[in-house]
């Protein structure tokens, strides 16, 4: 089953004279276990594509399916349900919730996905141990470094075994070593769980981990410069 399928997706952002065609008839398939990099300059529409793929924005035209399930454009509640169960997010900043400790930040996604508590706690514990932050599980967000926070964010994105992980510049706020560690963990754990990973990034250091590199130009998606299939 395809992890993510976009068929003829278009999206206009803004309105009136400020309206911009961010996506024009984008079609894309990503299979389970793939890591796909989405490259492009700032403002090219990378975040819009991630948002449409994640059901956060509805497309003006076309269809989006995640794990085979349609994200109905006119039904925000249905999109929310699919998002909670089948999609994981890693943001540029960790976006951990400061009212919760590290473990609870992971469990909140498990709760939204409807996981049983023992299963959720077991998976969260395994992920945090694998990310090397298990010993920090009870620590408040304010007491974590940026790298540690992002590892908790990766665990949050994977705890409900999603079909798709969408990551927006996950290494942008990290130093080189921390960024590499986070990406290595994301790739390894994501593949172990059969999740497809779509990463919007400027970070060339991620290229070796990618199964495909795509670029978004003028609202369309194609192979990135230097990627296989691109002269």
């Amino acid at each position, binding site marked *: 089953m395809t992890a993510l399928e976009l068929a003829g997706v278009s999206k206009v952002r803004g309105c009136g004279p400020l309206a911009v065609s961010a996506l024009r008839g984008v079609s894309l398939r990503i299979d389970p276990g793939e890591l796909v990099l989405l490259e492009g300059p700032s403002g090219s529409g990378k*975040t819009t594509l*991630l*948002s449409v793929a*994640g059901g*956060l*924005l509805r497309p003006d035209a076309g269809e989006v399916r995640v794990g085979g399930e349609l994200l109905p454009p006119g039904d925000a*509640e249905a999109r*929310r*349900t699919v*998002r*909670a*169960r089948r*999609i994981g*997010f890693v*943001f*540029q*900043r960790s*976006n951990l*919730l*400061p*009212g*919760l400790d590290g473990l*609870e930040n992971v*469990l*909140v*996604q*498990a*709760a*939204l*996905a*409807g*996981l*049983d*508590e*023992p*299963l*959720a706690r077991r998976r969260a514990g395994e992920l945090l141990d694998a990310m090397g932050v298990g010993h920090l599980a009870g620590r408040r967000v304010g007491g974590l470094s940026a790298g540690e926070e992002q590892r908790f964010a990766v665990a*949050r994105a994977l705890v409900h075994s999603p079909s798709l992980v969408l990551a*927006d*510049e996950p290494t*942008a*706020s990290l130093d080189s070593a921390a960024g590499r560690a986070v990406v290595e963990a994301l790739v390894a754990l994501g593949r172990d769980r059969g999740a497809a990973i779509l990463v919007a990034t400027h970070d060339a250091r991620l290229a070796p981990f990618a199964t495909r590199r795509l670029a978004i130009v003028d609202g369309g998606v194609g192979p990135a410069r230097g990627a296989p299939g691109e002269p």
Partner: protein
Amino acid sequence: MGNPLRPGRFLRRALRGGVGRAWLAGSGVAAAALLALALLAAYRGATSGVAAYVGQVGFDLWVAPRRIDNLVRSAGQLPAGAEEAVRAIAGVAEVGPILRSFAAVEGGPAGDRRRLTLLVIGFRGPSGLGGPPSLVAGHAPASPDEIALDRGAAHRLGVGPGATVEVAGDRVRVVGITSGTNLLATQFAFVDLQAADDALGAFGRPSFLVVRLAPGAEPDPVKRAIEAQVERSAAFSRDDFVRNNVREIASGVLPVLALVTVLGLAVAVALVALLARGLADDRRRDAAVLLALGASPRAVGLGVLAHVEKIVLLGATAGVAAALAASSALERFAPTVELAVRWNDLLAAPAAFAAAAALAATGAVLRLGRVDPVEAFRP
């Protein structure tokens, strides 16, 4: 299906935000509650003194010279023999003559003598009708050389039970301290009826008569009988007489106090609404993250509302506690300031704040429901 992890328990805590901001907001609400309650208490205190005295249980009817309808601003006397005439009317159980005047009272330690003009009530002490509504120390005057002072007046004069003060030049001993007898502009003092009569040269003509009705007696027939029997007199029910006296107080300083109170309450409610809205708006980013992760807008909105209401109610409760403490401290250390803190105000202020906060936060929460979860992507 086992035991599903419930999102609610995480959402409520996730939407709490930082402790420092919650403390600041809660402190602001507490300060607003204290302001509102202090203003209400001061406003009520301005009229509570006269109402406490005039409206005492057992003061069923007040008899005044015709064209005089209040105790606060009046001058006049009933005819001699009025007391006996009223006592003879069917349905009257007890009659208390009152002689009322303003008098200069001087007292305090040597070298720091102070002088106050007090509303002096002469009554047939120590237990006749017309005495003080309550005593916080000592007893009511029982002889011509004794006086009971309002506690605010006693505090300002710097005297207590056992001290000697001068009333219109006559030396009398302070034997009691009264409460509920502060009119803001002046205070009550209670002396023996005979002493007041001698000082004023009233020759047995009282300013007012207080009447206690016999059990089962109807007030209206007794009022009519009094007005028929006592020449040039008018009789009032207790409630009417209280209303008349409050009206007199209200025509003085009260309108200004009322304006200040209303403005203060409006400021307090607006402040609480602003704090509530700020608290809700402050949760915008966390709300966007939760919505992106798949939380329902309704659950997020209710979580924010619960967070705001909790802080407002905790703050208001702290304000109520502070108001009670302030009232108690003033009563003990500065009784000249009469704060009449009432239980219905203590309940109404937090309720009004909670309603204002809910209203203000609801607007913010509705906007949170429309927050674009894409905001979670923004650095």
